[in-house]
């Protein structure tokens, strides 16, 4: 019984100690920030790339003298592309490591899982890849440098309104995909046949068979990761799919598209993308990334938004010269017309960025903008 009592009481005692222990380093030599990204699982393709880009961008800042002489130190946590793991990671970063800002999450679920915690503790949460529309209203301390899916879902719906009366929609059950799907549903005036799947599934044959019987004129695929997109496309091809395919911006790298180029040319493909301007700075960064990590980063647009996120945070930290997160927040809101890697950018009153998606088709070799046609 005594032992049981000790076990019951010990956590509370330790909890009480925690505040005192971690408050001892009041004058740190470095500025600690946190990083949340999917470092394992489906989302790791994007997550690891963003981790590398962030590290490289921070290294560059530190080599140039850091933040008023202090170096930035980033502590990474695996958000595993879901709200649960992300909120656990955030708790650790916020309560134990006492970070002033967190770069991340990458998946929308991660950012949405982290936001309530950072908001309560007044910690800056700056995502460079999350795009769920819900993040717009996630809090005052939440920012992002990538566009919201609102623009993605609505331009896809505009395109569908012009071309189709009835479409099929296959959505992965994740915050990111559902976000796009709901915006699309809001704006599309025709009829939608909805099919969903969980992230753990990879057999879509029956859903495709069902859609083929529904007299639809096109299908919108909203997967969370390029890997799932590839499986979906392969099974569509196996089922002799012959209707146009629309998709979210998941396939920025044309490698997946090229694997099925004959199929895409036959059925026609239209995808939403946000493309960053081709700049010398970006190319230099990509070159140094390639030499350092031995591979070319696959999502150029997210490379740009991630560098911007790091640089904008650094700019705000430099201006504020303290750990006062409310001042850092105001400094971030005050950044207007910043010449970043992803264009001339500013945050709006919700912490969203002023860049949008546009539509592209695939001609068998490369993505072609539909606006220019």
């Amino acid at each position: 019984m005594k032992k049981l009592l000790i076990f019951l009481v010990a956590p509370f005692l330790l909890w009480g100690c925690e505040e005192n222990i971690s408050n001892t380093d009041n004058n740190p030599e470095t500025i600690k920030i946190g990083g949340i990204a999917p470092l394992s699982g489906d989302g790791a393709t994007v997550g690891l790339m963003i981790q590398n880009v962030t590290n490289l961008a921070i290294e560059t800042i530190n080599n140039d003298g850091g933040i008023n002489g202090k170096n930035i130190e980033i502590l990474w946590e695996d958000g595993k592309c879901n709200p649960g793991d992300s909120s656990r990671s955030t708790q650790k970063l916020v309560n134990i490591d006492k970070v002033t800002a967190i770069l991340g999450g990458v998946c929308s679920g991660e950012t949405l899982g982290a936001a309530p915690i950072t908001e309560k503790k007044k910690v800056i949460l700056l995502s460079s890849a999350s795009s769920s529309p819900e993040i717009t209203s996630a809090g005052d301390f939440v920012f992002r440098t990538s566009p919201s899916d609102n623009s993605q879902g609505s331009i896809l719906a505009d395109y569908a309104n012009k071309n189709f009366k009835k479409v099929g929609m296959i959505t992965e059950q994740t915050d990111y995909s559902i976000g796009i799907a709901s915006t699309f549903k809001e704006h599309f005036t025709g009829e939608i046949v909805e099919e969903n799947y969980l992230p753990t599934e990879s057999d879509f044959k029956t859903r495709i068979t069902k859609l083929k019987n529904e007299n639809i004129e096109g299908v919108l695929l909203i997967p969370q990761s390029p890997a799932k997109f590839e499986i979906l496309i392969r099974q569509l091809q196996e089922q002799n799919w012959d209707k146009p395919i629309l998709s979210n911006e998941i396939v920025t790298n044309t490698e997946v598209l090229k694997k099925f180029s004959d199929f895409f040319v036959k059925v026609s493909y239209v995808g939403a993308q946000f493309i960053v301007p081709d700049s010398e700075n970006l190319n230099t960064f990509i070159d140094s990334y390639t030499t350092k990590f031995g591979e070319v980063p696959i999502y150029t647009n997210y490379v740009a938004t991630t560098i911007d996120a790091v640089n904008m945070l650094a700019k705000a930290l430099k201006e504020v010269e303290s750990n006062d997160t409310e001042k850092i927040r105001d400094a971030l809101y005050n950044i207007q017309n910043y010449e970043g890697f992803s264009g001339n950018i500013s945050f709006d009153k919700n912490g969203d960025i002023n860049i949008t998606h546009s539509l592209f088709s695939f001609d068998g070799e490369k993505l072609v903008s539909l606006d220019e046609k």
Partner: protein
Amino acid sequence: MWDSIYKLTLVIGRLIFPITTFILIMIFGLEIFSFLETKATIIPQLLWNGLVSGALIALVSLGLTLIYSIAGFIQFAHGELVALGAYSFMVFHKWLNWEILPASGGALFFVILVGLLLEKFFFRPVSQKDSMIPLVISIGLSMGIQSIILIIFGANILTMSNNFSKSHSFFNNTILATYPQILTVALSIFLMISLILFLKHSKIGKSIRAVSSNRAVAETFGINVNKSLQWIFGIGALMAGIAGICLGFEQNLEPLMGVHILIKAFAAIILGSIGSIRGAIFGAFLIGVSENLLVGLGIIPSGFSVAIPFIILILMLLIKPEGLLGKRFESLRQ
């Protein structure tokens, strides 16, 4: 007087089920018929999809049920043998550029080896102990193997070559099937039949059945129990390996692929009756077909398809825990 009333209630009791069914069919029959008519064109394809997924589940559930009937516990690391089959095939075929047949041979050899080693080093030392111990060991092994796959291959989804994903149409274009799918179904059926024949007629098969029905008596008759165990783990691993290769072609490779199919296989053996070969096959196809039909006909929203095996599992455990083809649990326990 009371006697005739009793008889009457018996007769009514016996008739009540067929009569209500008849009335229900009379009322809803037309609607069901017209509903099926609108979907008639896709039903063959749905059945085929179900058959493919059933065949894959059956390959896994057979090994699971065999191990249960001999060793007396559910081998949770069995799903990882599926994943190992798929990954080792990919190593031989894609990384070492072997042809498909030698690559499959290599992968199956590797999986059987792993299966036998697991048996020798982890399950045989505790084979006389309470069945809880090997069960817990198998859960640990499952996590261990998953982690090893994660360390070596990473968490990314890998895809096998897609040279075969061209489909061919059969029966007036009502069914579209790829060669790997046809091969999966054919192999699965062939293996089921040979397994049943093997257990029925070969000497080792007979000794396996003897051990399964009463271990102690079989031992006193001089049957080598350890040898039967080895055979069972070998056969189970072989089937899991084949399932893994087929699954790799059919879907994709990810570290948790074994767990996803093991859950379905687990539901299948409980549905069919745990420890029974025919039950495992029957349960596997029932789950595969019902999953695809229910989603394909729109009876269940597609987001719930993963839940179907669990729903079947829970209903079965509540209503008929001994399984569709099973005897009462008590007699199995003995």
